[in-house]
């Protein structure tokens, strides 16, 4: 299994988000190279699309979305290419990068964002190698369990979600309620 095309979404505590506020923040992240080990390229604004990808910070290796799909805003980390490590490390890294981005957004003074850690969505955008079916779940479940254990403790429960035409997705109830900062510190 290739450790690419992983997505991790961490939801915001507030349901209403002023997406336009994200645009200058993401531009600033590019200008100041706020994520030092990633090449950040551009900002795509899809605030006009209901339940869409929101505002996207486009990078070379990864994209960072303030995604509003299902009317549930959240930070969606999406790895596209170029991970140098094994499968488990790839999953761990996706969780870590998503949480780090949440932390950075929480620290942006103009945003007033807060993320919750009780629920996370994990997806793989690779229908060839990870179709949304039980066998994929069986292959991913141990690594997901190890990753969630690192960040959230051992009481997480998993549910595979979506139909066969949708990407492989697992909704993770972490059983945790710590802040993003505490969650990262734990790992």
């Amino acid at each position, binding site marked *: 299994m290739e450790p690419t095309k992983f997505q991790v979404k961490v939801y915001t505590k507030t349901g209403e988000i002023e997406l336009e506020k994200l645009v200058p923040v993401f531009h600033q992240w590019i200008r100041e190279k706020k994520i030092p080990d990633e090449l950040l*390229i551009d900002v*795509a604004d899809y605030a006009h699309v*209901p339940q869409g*990808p929101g505002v996207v910070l486009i990078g070379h290796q990864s994209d960072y979305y303030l995604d509003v799909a299902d009317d549930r805003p959240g930070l969606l980390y999406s790895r596209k290419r170029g991970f140098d490590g094994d499968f488990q490390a790839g999953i761990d890294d996706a969780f870590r990068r998503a949480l780090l981005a949440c932390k950075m957004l929480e620290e942006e003074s103009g945003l007033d964002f807060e993320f919750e850690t009780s629920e996370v969505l994990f997806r793989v955008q690779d229908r060839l190698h990870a179709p949304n079916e039980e066998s994929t779940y069986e292959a991913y479940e141990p690594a997901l369990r190890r990753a969630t254990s690192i960040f959230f403790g051992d009481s997480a429960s998993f549910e595979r979600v979506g139909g066969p035409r949708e990407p492989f997705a697992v909704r993770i109830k972490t059983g945790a309620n710590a802040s993003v900062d505490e969650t990262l510190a734990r790992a």
Partner: protein
Amino acid sequence: MTSWKEQLGDRIPEPLAGEVDLFEGQIELKKQGKLDDKIFAETRLRRGVYGQRYDNGLRDDGTGQKPLDFPCGDLTKGPDTVWDAPGMMRIKIPFGKMTADQLDVLSELAEENSDSILHVTTRQDIQLHFIHIEESPDMMRRLAAVGITTREACGNSVRNVTACEYAGVCTTQAFDVTPYANAITQYLLGHPDVQDFGRKFKIAFSGCEDNPCGLVTFHDLGAVAHVRDGKRGFRVVVGGGLGAVPVQAKVLAEFCPEEELLPLAQAVSRVFARLGEKQSRARARIKFLVQKVGIEEFKRLVAEEREGLRPDERWTAFLDDLHSTDEKPIREPGALPSDAPLGFQKWAKHNLKPQAQEGYYTAIVKLPLGDFTSTQGRALADLAREFTGDAMRCTVEQNLAFRWLSGADAVAFYQRLDALHMAEPGAGTITDMTSCPGTDTCKLGISASRGVTGELRKRLTLVEDQLDPAVQRLRMKASGCFNSCGQHHAADIGFTGVSRQVGGRKVPHFNVVLGGQWTENAKSYGLVVGAVPSKNIPKAVELITQHYLENREGDESFQAFIARVGKKEFRKVLAPIQKPPSYEEDPSYYSDWGDPREYGIGDIGVGECAGEIVPFVEFGLQEAEQQLHDAQDALEAGQAAAAAKGGFTAMVTAAKALVRHLEVQVKDDADDVVSNFRTHLYDTEIFHDPFAKGKFANYLLKMHGDKSFEDANEETAHRALDEAQLFLEAAHACYQRLTQAASAAAAE
């Protein structure tokens, strides 16, 4: 399964499978430094793989241009185009027609390879952005498996053939143009006569003269359906175009009988390929050729070319089954309910149109800025499966049309759309603006056309119920630069991005263009009134519409009003908002809508709309080199017969390229190529080497005659490849001599 190629297997039809394999091979060759930058750029463009803003590896972050340090280093995918930089894939949807299965796959690709957004263009394509070039072959395979090709979606080729989204269901059409648009699409796709253009070539069909959907008058070639004495045909126009200098197409044929449509298009293509400008891309569209020689001379040239065409059975074969493109409704017809909910009534007013077939309607799903998500795409595919069948069409106004909706299902359809947040009313009204990508992703964008369009949509949607019906009916369109992809010339109120220098800083502006006519196939273009700072465009719309409402005479249309009062009066109306405040007074004017960076034009790159001007012969010689390379690999793998055959094929390919360079029609089969090669290059001694004379040509002629490659052993295969190598060298030398001779003749 480890690859899409294996997974899809024979679900990828030939020749698409072979074409994608070839493109994948060319990607590898480019990475190895074995393909020229310009040739590779035009190759990928002709596969729909397009450049995007910042792909030169530089981006202005608001404080100055900064390098984007992509990991690929010096590797490029065209002149000044960095390999790793994200690009756009343009996916041709001929006449906008899409099936549910196709929409599913498009939605998958948007999620896996792009940013989950599908964008409908003003020419009925679907575009996906932020694509890495190395992912494009698998994307093409997945598309091919559902009958979609990206071939010739960009580059100097025949672009997507467009047609009214109501074709076949329209109440005013002469007849359904769909089978004709389909026939011309299939016939010209990859046709040898359309491979050597100096610029792109756009074709559009319309079912009638009066309604707007086909917009043929601003196309390179347009066909409007007519019936004369009971016989089907088309009024054919040529040489239309937008851009900096919009031109109305001229009538090429008042009535072209249906059986003459394809040969006429082929003859026009051959004249364009032969006489069109090839050096200056700014003057290379066919409109400049028509202007240069005059329409009467152009008609004569086309008629002469038509006379000399070899008959092709495909010209008329499609006429035997004009119903092959018909759609079959999956639900019984029915009447609209008399007690429909208010929300439905508001939506249906502009988004639902009765079809010619009683009890059926076409529903327009209004897309904000032409965008929808992968999740919405799957849900829309489900709606098609449930209510309409495979009868979706992308529209030139960047929406989606669902045809064959039973009136009895209309409310349920609306409610399902509403649940998807896709039941926005007002299709075809002032809130339904179209826009090109502008500075969001286009290398040529000057101003943020999507930004200003988004802002206007937001503001107008809030007040649309209070707008006077005469204002509601207006169409607004925005282009980020003078290339006019937003089709602003044909709008009541159009905008085109320009930059102005104020107090030592740049300020984004839009030229305001008033009074363009969308109806009658975009019969007339608007007048440029003047440039307004981008941030004042909402105010400009308010002033323009207010002035119209207060000063119109009776039911005077907007176009008639503009024509009567002239642009001078509107200059006065806009004068108070044309000068931006100083930076110190209001710095917001110095950045564009949706982009907080201080505005600049340093990010404008070299557009790829024009493609790279690479003569067809160079593609042919390159293809021959590839075939010889593959043949050498086969020999190393111990496949002597395959190697020898490959060497022969490489010679035939090179010979065909040279024959075609002499403007001789030639088929793909080896016998025809060799026969023409003998007549036009060997007997005339054009191919002869100054020292070796006809020696290298004889390698081809002999191998064609004795078919020695059929029973080749390792030794004879080796010799065949040596001969093929020498033949290719001679072909390159011959091409150089021909080019030098042409240059010398031109200089004289």
